[in-house]
């Protein structure tokens, strides 16, 4: 009896994931644009700035590569989560929420669906890594793991915010006051060292995304500020916290 219930919950979770994956497969233009954008950062912005700047003897383009991966995870994950505002408007969620599946399972299916989307996009970006000579390809699996955990945190955060908002107007506010600050304060585009103004250093160190960028940069370029285990623990803690917060808010959502 109990076993049957768990099986049904898992099946429900899988159903939600499966739905997200189908949507992902169908929206090809969205995938293309979500990959083209980071490539533009790398090749247009990166080579522009890289013409006169290098960091720790590493080509600037190579230096920001981990940061751009984190950027893709940040934007992809949070927007994926926020998208439930739209789903609710169109009543797509309604049919799901009345099914005999717990909210937690639906939430987990959603989180895994978002992480799958983002991870597949990251893998596509990794296919371009041979263009960046300083990247150590053996670091890719560990980088992928760290980015996946980051994605759990950020999809959960998006879903948490999405369950609080009833209209898409919140989108702009969240973009301006949350997503962009998280990105700029993550050290994705510049090194975190003593040359930074004191206040900026503080903010950067408070930003959990900083540790994702640092960890990935460590395994791919062997340039880092914190030991890998610190990055890993901070990111994991961030993911657990956001996951719990998101599941609570999602369960309370009307």
């Amino acid at each position, binding site marked *: 009896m109990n076993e049957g219930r768990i099986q049904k919950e898992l*099946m429900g979770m899988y*159903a939600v994931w*499966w*739905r997200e994956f189908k949507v992902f497969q169908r929206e090809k233009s969205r995938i293309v644009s979500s990959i083209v954008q980071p490539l533009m950062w790398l090749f247009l912005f990166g080579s522009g700035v890289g013409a006169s700047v290098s960091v720790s003897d590493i080509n600037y383009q190579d230096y920001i590569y981990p940061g751009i991966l984190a950027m893709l995870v940040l934007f992809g994950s949070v927007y994926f989560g926020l998208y439930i505002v739209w789903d609710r408007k169109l009543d*797509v969620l*309604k*049919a799901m929420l009345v*099914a*005999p599946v717990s909210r937690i399972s639906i939430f987990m299916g959603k989180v895994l669906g978002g992480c799958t989307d983002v991870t597949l996009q990251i893998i596509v970006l990794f296919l371009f890594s041979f263009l960046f000579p300083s990247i150590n390809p053996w670091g890719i699996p560990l980088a992928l793991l760290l980015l996946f955990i980051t994605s759990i945190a950020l999809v959960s955060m998006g879903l948490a915010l999405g369950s609080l908002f009833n209209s898409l107007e919140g989108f702009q506010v969240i973009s301006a006051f949350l997503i962009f600050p998280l990105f700029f304060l993550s050290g994705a585009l510049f090194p975190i060292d003593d040359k930074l103004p004191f206040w900026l250093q503080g903010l950067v160190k408070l930003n959990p995304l900083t540790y994702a960028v640092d960890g990935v940069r460590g395994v791919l370029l062997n340039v880092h500020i914190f030991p890998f285990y610190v990055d890993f623990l901070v990111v994991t803690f961030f993911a657990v916290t956001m996951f719990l917060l998101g599941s609570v808010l999602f369960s309370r959502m009307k």
Partner: protein
Amino acid sequence: MEIIKTSALTKIYGRIQAVNSIDLSIHKGEVFGLLGPNGAGKTTTIGMLCTIVRPSSGSASIAGYDIIREPARVRRQIGIVFQDPTLDTVLTGRENLELHARLYGVSSDIREARINQMLELVDLHERGNDITRTYSGGMRRRLELARGLLHRPAVLFLDEPTLGLDPQTRARIWEYIKKMAQTEQTTVVLTTHYMEEAEQVCDRVGIIDHGKIIALDSPEGLKESMGGDMVAIRVKESPLEKIRALPYVYEVKENEGTLEIITKEAHLHLAEILSIIKDVECVEVRVPTLNDVFIKLTGRDIREDSIEDSGSWVDSVARYRQRGS
């Protein structure tokens, strides 16, 4: 055997009593219609039974499970077709059903066959692999019906299931709903303001107005409660009192130049009635409809409250009432 039971079920939104202490008991295999104008409390009642809306007070059970204490068990017993479409328009018809089957724990060995069966029943087997965004309104509704029945629920809730469909599709859907109720012993609880359709389909109807059930019987029983046939006569001057004095006339009133009479056995007495009236322009005789029952109970036409009605429900009642203008 009763499969749904509510006692003093109540929902209050702020200061509005949307559902006011409803006591209902619905039998297994029955097609039960909840009829009433928009805002009468139909959708809220269904919402509470489906565990979406939490009652303010009172209680209800479905198949023996309490809607407040055991919502998960209740949900397993029910299928729902919402008033507003809830299909996933990014997915194909078949994928929508697959998603639903998994959410409701339909085991994989029967899933495929069941999906095919349901697609066939709603005539969508040829369009099953098309994205539902390309479906017409009627097709979407049919697919939702198929989805609601997919997991063989004990009770199927249909909130205005034929809203916005063409008459042919509507008739087909009602037939199918009747068949389902019979062969699978599915109890159907539906809301509608299409009184005519409810008459043909429902075993029993409850008329709901301002959150209260004001009448509850079989459609025949309700119509019989009107006491006789309806006669409408367009006149120039109306001898109201003379007609009222006739022993077989139950009720008579004048409405914009039309006399509305409820009488016993109209076919026997029509000649005498007409002989009293001097200038008869036209006459209509018919048996009462549920809408007449509604008018009698509430003093107004159900259509007056139905904004989304686009004239598809043009029937004798409307003509009867509005001939004067």
